[in-house]
């Protein structure tokens, strides 16, 4: 027995020593819910993939972190030559991690690579209107588009530039596991399912990053992720649920930092199917019947900003003259009766994902409850995310479904993708509105664009294809000693972080 206790004590001692030796200086470990799929830029689309990629590669254009206005990044400036031609002027002297120079050829190579169907790039559809990239000189490129593309700058904020020589030499598969970019962090190692490690790029063109090492660690289970944050094993996590905010704030080393996001949440009111939701009055009634401020206060613990219309107030194209629908159940009942129905006749199904958006399932249930208050019978159907998306794309949902959209910083990206008849993300479409949207998409003059999109926003507001809910607040769990303010565009960039002394 004595021998057992000796061995036990030894094991315990070794364990404690090993635990205490895991602290490393000047590194930031970011806990993510999933591993990246690839480290080849532009190939795939989820946040877990985008987060490491945005630290290794740079885009041509970015957004000012406060105003979210476009600012040059690898491109120092641009000019619209005509409706179909844009010219970009590139910074000189920027190097990729392997020492190769960044220049016009890299830009052309990247766009051509994305647009080559053989390469099966997930984002090809977003860049396909660019039919040619013309190299004017080493640091000037001209984009020729097949149609007016006012959304081009927005697209370029997430167009990460590849190193042409490297990709040609090693091929996409190798480059996916050993990426080279111009970004502030150089790839070091990727133990799949465990961690992605990157070291700061000393020659980064905007200056050497403060934090020496950034690590992305996939921790799928949320409770474990919070536990790891609380004990200081990791330093940043995204999407702390409302009910965990107090727990994180009461941690010795942790706090929640919230920021309104441009991502919006809504309940689509499907007008593709025969039934009461084809009536504008009924759809408006649903907006009067749902008490959005109450949902924000009690279901989201205050982490949301009520929307007025379909764009968030952070979206530069948002029409500020719109006011949120007020909570007015009597008016709701009246509108439903005006449309020729009794609220108690309405029996509807609301599809919700589970865990995709903050408290999504609880939100759906609370909305069903609130509509129940005026006699509408709503049953909630909760789906795994893939199934939810399948239902929406195949027009196989109930009469209502919950969805989020973002980051969204321009009218076209939201309205064209969500309100056109051929798209299904709102379950809504009106042929005459399609024409208005198509006309607006073709405009390049800023004043004409604003006027057109304002008019469309007013129509969307009146037509009420959604129950307009809120723009999400992103709640980040962060180590208190880390000097970092979250961004409205959901990006987590090691370059913007430093440890307090």
């Amino acid at each position, binding site marked *: 027995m004595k021998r057992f206790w000796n061995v036990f004590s030894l094991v315990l001692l*070794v364990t404690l020593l090993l635990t205490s030796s895991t602290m490393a200086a000047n590194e930031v470990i970011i806990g993510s819910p999933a591993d990246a799929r690839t480290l080849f830029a532009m190939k795939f689309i989820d946040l877990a993939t985008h987060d490491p990629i945005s630290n290794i590669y740079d885009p041509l254009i970015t957004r000012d972190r406060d105003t979210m206005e476009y600012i040059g990044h690898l491109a120092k400036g641009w000019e619209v030559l005509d409706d179909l031609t844009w010219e970009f002027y590139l910074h000189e002297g920027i190097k990729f991690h392997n020492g190769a120079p960044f220049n016009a050829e890299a830009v052309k190579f990247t766009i051509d690579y994305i647009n080559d169907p053989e390469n099966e790039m997930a984002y*090809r559809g977003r860049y396909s209107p660019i039919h040619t990239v013309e190299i004017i000189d080493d640091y000037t490129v001209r984009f020729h588009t097949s149609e007016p593309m006012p959304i081009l700058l927005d697209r370029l904020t997430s167009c990460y530039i590849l190193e042409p020589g490297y990709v040609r030499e090693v091929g996409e598969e190798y480059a996916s596991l050993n990426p080279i970019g111009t970004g502030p962090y150089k790839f070091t190692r990727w133990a799949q399912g465990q961690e992605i490690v990157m070291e700061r790029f000393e020659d980064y063109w905007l200056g050497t990053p403060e934090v020496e090492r950034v690590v992305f660690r996939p921790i799928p289970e949320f409770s*474990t992720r919070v536990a790891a944050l609380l004990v200081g*094993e990791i330093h940043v996590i995204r999407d702390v649920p409302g009910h965990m905010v107090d727990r994180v704030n009461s941690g010795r080393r942790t706090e929640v930092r919230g920021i309104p996001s441009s991502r919006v949440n809504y309940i689509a009111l499907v007008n593709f199917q025969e039934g009461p939701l084809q009536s504008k009055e009924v759809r408006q009634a649903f907006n009067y019947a749902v008490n959005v401020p109450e949902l924000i206060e009690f279901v989201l613990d205050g982490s949301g900003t009520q929307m007025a219309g379909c764009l968030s107030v952070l979206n530069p194209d948002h029409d500020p003259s719109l006011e949120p629908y007020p909570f007015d159940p009597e008016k709701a009942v009246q509108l439903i009766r005006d449309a020729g129905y009794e609220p108690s006749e309405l029996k509807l199904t609301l599809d919700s994902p589970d865990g995709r958006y903050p408290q999504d399932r609880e939100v759906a249930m609370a909305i069903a409850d609130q509509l129940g208050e005026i006699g509408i019978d709503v049953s909630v159907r909760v789906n795994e995310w893939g199934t939810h*998306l399948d239902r929406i794309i195949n027009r196989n949902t109930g009469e209502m479904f919950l969805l989020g959209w973002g980051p969204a910083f321009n009218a076209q990206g939201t309205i064209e993708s969500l309100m056109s008849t051929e798209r299904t993300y709102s379950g809504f479409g009106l042929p005459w509105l399609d024409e208005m949207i198509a006309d607006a998409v073709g405009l390049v003059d800023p004043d004409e664009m604003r006027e057109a999109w304002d008019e469309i926003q007013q129509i969307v507001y009146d037509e009420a294809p959604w129950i307009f809910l809120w723009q999400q607040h992103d709640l980040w769990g962060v180590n208190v000693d880390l000097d970092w303010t979250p961004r409205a565009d959901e990006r987590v960039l090691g370059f913007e972080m430093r440890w307090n002394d």
Partner: protein
Amino acid sequence: MQRYLIKRIFQMLIVVFLALTAVFFMQFLAGDPVILLLPMDATYEEIAEMRQRLGFEDSIFVQYFRFVSRALRGDFGQSLRHPQTAVQLVFSRIPATLELALIAVVVSLLVAIPIGVLSAAFRGSWFDQIAIVITVFGQAVPGFWLGIMLILFFAVTLEWLPTGGRGELNNLILPIITLTAFYAARFARMTRSTVLDVLNTDYIRTARAKGLTERRILYKHALRNASISIITLLGLQLGQLLGGAVVTETVFYWPGLGRLLVQSLLNRDFPVVFTGVFFIAVVHASLNLVVDLVYLLVDPRISYD
């Protein structure tokens, strides 16, 4: 014996083939993988084009024929999500799964067999009663809950151990405790009941009458005779663990096969799912064969000639 082996290996091949066929056809219930591969603003044309490229537009039987002919050559295709082949991905996770499974089984047996034997030997004693309570608890408590509780106590409150991960010795402790709680409980209960059965047999009474010590009777006679059941259970449990301890791997972010497969299933990364199922089917079928062969060593009455 040789004929027996050939017959068993042939049966194994059929089992693996049927498992893969079942999973192949079940994929169509899971939904369209392409929708999850493209951004939400992708158009119908883009979705259709990607489906075409990946071969999902062909008829089910064309797809099945292609799948079988490739699988026969060991080619399960490229992962739909990751830059590697499905085989590379699955094989990259096997060391972590093997490490966790083997250690968990060894620790479980080391804990369970003495408890089971002593419980049987001292049936009705306080030791037996406590052992029953603990083993019932071990089997009843969900691994998910236990894992989180262990993290909260040892990692968050005491800060003795890491919350999870892999690479150092201390990363193993909490996952192993979580798995052992379940598997040791199962082994201990099985050991106890089979040893109890054996202790009531005539030959044990004879051994006692011969004047053998109780210790010798227990470990030499009773346990050896009870071992067939334990080995059978061991084969089944090891097969299950080698397929990946999904819950434990998820809670402690252990980069094993189970986590990869569940993630691949949710992401509809079918090539990876097929490869994983292939691996698990082969492991299960092989373990069954090994267990049957081990019977030969343990029980001289058994023969396959």
